[in-house]
C-alpha cells in the first residue's frame, strides 16, 4: 500500500496528534512511514500542515503537488490552501468550522467559511464535510476534532487504514482515560452525520 496524506489546520488544532496516530497505525502494520510538519514560529495561530507518506519506495517525507490521496482539513480555508497537493480524483475530508485570523479582526475584513466549503464543493468530487460544532456538542467534548476527522477519513476508504488500526494506535499513544471519548469520536462519522458534500 502507498498512501500520501496531507493534514492541515491552524496551530493548536491537533493536526500533529492526528498525523502521529496515522503513522503509529501504519507502523503497527509493518509499513514504512515518513512524515513532515510545521514546527516553530509558524505554529502560533499560523497555518500548519503535516505530510504523512506510507509505503515502500519513498525517499522524501514531503508530498509533491498532485500527489495526495487524501487531504484531512481541520479548517475550511486551510483545506482550500492545500488543494494543489490533491491528486486527480483524490478525497477531501474537512471540518466546516472556520477560524478567523486576527488580521481579519483588525482590518474588519470578513472571511467566510461557507465560501470555502462552496469552493470545495465545486472542485472536489470526493468531499466529506464534518460539522465540528454539532459533532463536538453531541459527543460532549470540544477536544476531539482530530478523531472526528480521522473517523470520516477512515470511512471514506481513502486512508487505507481501518477503524481498528486507528484504535490500536490510540491505545498505544493516549492515556487510557481518554480512550472511550476518542473511540466515540472516531466512530461518529456515519454517512448521515458526515455527508459526502
Amino acid at each position, binding site marked *: 500500500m502507498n498512501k500520501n496524506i496531507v493534514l492541515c489546520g491552524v496551530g493548536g488544532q491537533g493536526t500533529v496528534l492526528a498525523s502521529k496516530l496515522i503513522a503509529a497505525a501504519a507502523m503497527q502494520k509493518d509499513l514504512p512511514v*515518513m512524515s513532515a510538519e510545521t*514546527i516553530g514560529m509558524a505554529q*502560533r*495561530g499560523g497555518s500548519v500542515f503535516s505530510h504523512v507518506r506510507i509505503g515502500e519506495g519513498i*525517499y522524501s*517525507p514531503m508530498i509533491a503537488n*498532485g500527489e495526495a490521496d487524501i487531504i484531512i482539513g481541520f479548517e475550511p480555508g486551510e483545506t482550500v490552501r492545500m488543494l494543489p497537493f490533491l491528486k486527480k480524483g483524490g478525497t477531501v475530508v474537512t471540518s466546516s468550522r472556520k477560524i478567523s485570523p486576527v488580521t481579519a*479582526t483588525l482590518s474588519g475584513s470578513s472571511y467566510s467559511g461557507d465560501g470555502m466549503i462552496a469552493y470545495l464543493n465545486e472542485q*472536489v468530487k470526493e468531499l466529506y464535510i464534518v460539522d465540528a460544532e454539532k459533532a463536538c456538542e453531541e459527543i460532549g467534548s470540544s477536544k476531539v476534532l482530530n478523531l472526528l476527522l480521522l473517523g470520516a477519513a477512515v470511512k471514506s476508504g481513502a486512508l487505507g487504514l481501518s477503524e481498528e488500526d486507528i484504535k490500536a494506535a490510540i491505545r498505544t499513544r493516549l492515556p487510557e482515560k481518554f480512550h472511550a471519548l476518542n473511540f466515540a469520536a472516531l466512530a461518529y462519522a456515519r454517512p448521515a452525520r458526515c455527508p459526502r458534500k
Partner: protein
Amino acid sequence: MHKEFLMGNEAIALGAVAAGVNLVSGYPGTPSTEVLETVAKRRADAAYVEWSVNEKAAMEVAAGAAYAGARALVTMKQVGLNVASDPLMSLAYIGVKGGMVVLVADDPGPISSQTEQDTRHFAFFSKIPCFDPSSAQEAYEMIQEAFAYSEKYHTPVFFRPTTRVCHGYASVTVKDADEYTLHQPDGFTKDTGRWVIFPRLSYQNHIKIEERNLTLAEDFSSYKRNQIIRSDDLLDSSGGIAGFPDSKTGRLTAPRKGIAAGGISFTYVMEALKAAGSAPVLKIATPHPFPERLALEFLDGLDEVLCIEELDPVIERELIHLCGRHHLPVKIYGKLSRHVKNAGENTRDSVSENIRGFLAQKNESAEGAADLPNSPVQNGAPDLPVRPPILCAGCPHRASFYAVKTAMKGKKTIFCGDIGCYTLGNAMPLDMVDTCLCMGAGLGIAQGVGRIEPDTHCFAFVGDSTFFASAITGVVNAVYNQADMTLIILDNSTTAMTGHQPHPGTGRTMMGEIVTKIDIEAVLRGIGLTTVETVDPLDYEASVSCVRRVAEEPGVKAIIFKSPCIAVTKPSRSMHVRPEKCISCKKCIRELGCPALIVSGKIVSIDASLCTGCSLCSQICPTGAIVNGKEGDGNE
C-alpha cells in the same frame, strides 16, 4: 535492532547515544533544538547534557570534554555557529582526542532564521570535515560514523542537517540499548606542545591539516554514503519506472546527463526521477573534503551535470573546479548558471521542474517522460485567510510593548528589538520593533543611533535568555562608554521561542538540578547601572508611569518587565465583555491585537478558550466593560 517513529533530530540524538556520547552541550535554536533535548530525555544517566549560556560556551565545553578523551556533541543552529566560530577556528588547528561532532542545523528558506548561510562553507573555511545527511535513517547511522572519523583523524567534524531532515519523521531502525557502544574517556594528558596554541604550532598543524584533508578526500571517495546511483539501483515502488530511455541498451542517449545532489535535495531528486526520466546521480554526503575520486568517476563519460542543492552552490563549484583541473569537457549547471533558483528552499516540485527541464533540453527521448501528475486547477479560488505568527493571547510581551508605546507617545524614539518571541512585537497594531539584527545586537544599535541622533530616546528590548546569551557585553559597553539609552528586559522566565528551555535565570539546569538563579537586576547593578526598576507588565498604570520616569533619567538605565510566559504557566482564567457597557469603540482590538478579542459586526467579545485573563484589555477599556470570569458565571 528495532523500529521507532522518530523526528530527524531524535534519530540524530539516538545515533549519538548509540555511539556512546559522553557529553552534549548546546544553545537552543530552530531547527537544532530537539537533538540535545532527546539525549537528555532518553539517556540522562549515560551522558552529561547542558544548555550552555551561548554557542561559544557550548563549543568550548564540548572541546574540553573531547580533550579529555570523551565523545562530545555540541549542537546549534547555523547563526549560532557565528557566535561559536572563534573557538572553532582555533580548535580546527588544535584538534581533539575523543570524537567531537559539531552539529549545526542549516535552515534553507529561511523558515525560522535571520540568514540563509551555508555551514558547508564554514567547513571549507575552517578545513573541518563535514557530513550532510539526507534522511532520518541516514542521519542516525551517519552521526555514529562521524564520531569514528573524528577520532580516526583527531579533528572535530561538522554534522550539518537541514530543517527538513531535522524535522522530518520516519520509521527508523535503531539499535537496542545493549548494542550501544560504551565509550570510556581516558582523561586529559598534559602536553603543552599539543594543547596550547602558538603561532609556530599553528603553522606546523596547518601543514598537517592540508595533508590530512587530501587523505580524507580519498577516504571519503570510498565512504559508502557518497554514492553514484545508476538507474538500476533506484527504489522501485509502483512496479516500474516510467520512461527510462536506457532500459534496453543500458546506455544514455547523447548528450549524456547526470545529476549531483546532497542532503534533503537528494531525496527530491530520487523522487523526481521516478517520473521525469533516467540519469545517473552523484550523492554527496561529505561536501568537504570533497570526494574527488568518486566525483571524477561520475563525471567520466558525461556531457552535462545538473547540481541540485540548497543554500550555496557548493557541489556545483567543486565539480566546476574538478572539470577545470582535469580538463574535462563537462558542462556543470546549477545555481551559478541560473538553472536552479539561488535563494529559498528546494521543494519536490521545484526539483521536478529543474530535472524535467534539464533532461528535456536537446534530448528528444526524455521529453515524453516528463509528464507529472496534475493537480486540480485552482481557478476562482476565494481569498485565503492570512495567518501571520503573532504573540499569544495573554502574552506579557504585549503588555510591555504597549506600556512603552503609551508612555513614549509623541516623543522621538527608536525601539531596537532582538531575537525571540518578542520580535513579533513588530506586528500591527503594536508596531514596536524598529530594528532586529541578531542575538544581542539591539543594545549596540541603540547606542550607535544615540550617538548620531542625541535627541532620540533609544530603547533596546531584550529577552531574559538572550540577555544571558549575548547582551551583557553590550550593557558593559554602554555603561563604559557613557551611552544614553533605556534597556528593557522582557523577562518571562524561559526561552519561549524555541520551546521553553531553562537558562541561567530560571534556576534549573538541563540535568534537572535546582541551582541558584542568576539575578538580572543584580547583574545590571553590578555592571554599574543605578536605575534598574522591576515591574509587572500586566499592571498597566504602574508600567506606563515606570517607563515615563525611567526614560527621563540620564545615562544607561533599565526596566525589567517580569511576568512568566503563559505557555509555561498556562493560566486558566478568562475575562468577558459586558455587552451593555461596551460602546463598540474597539479600542481594545485596535490597540492590542490580542487574538482572544474578536469582533463580529459591532459586537466585541472574548474567546474564552484563548483568553488567559491577563486583564490588559480591561485596563485600557474606557468604559470598564471587560470584567473577570466567563460570561454568565456571576463573577462580576
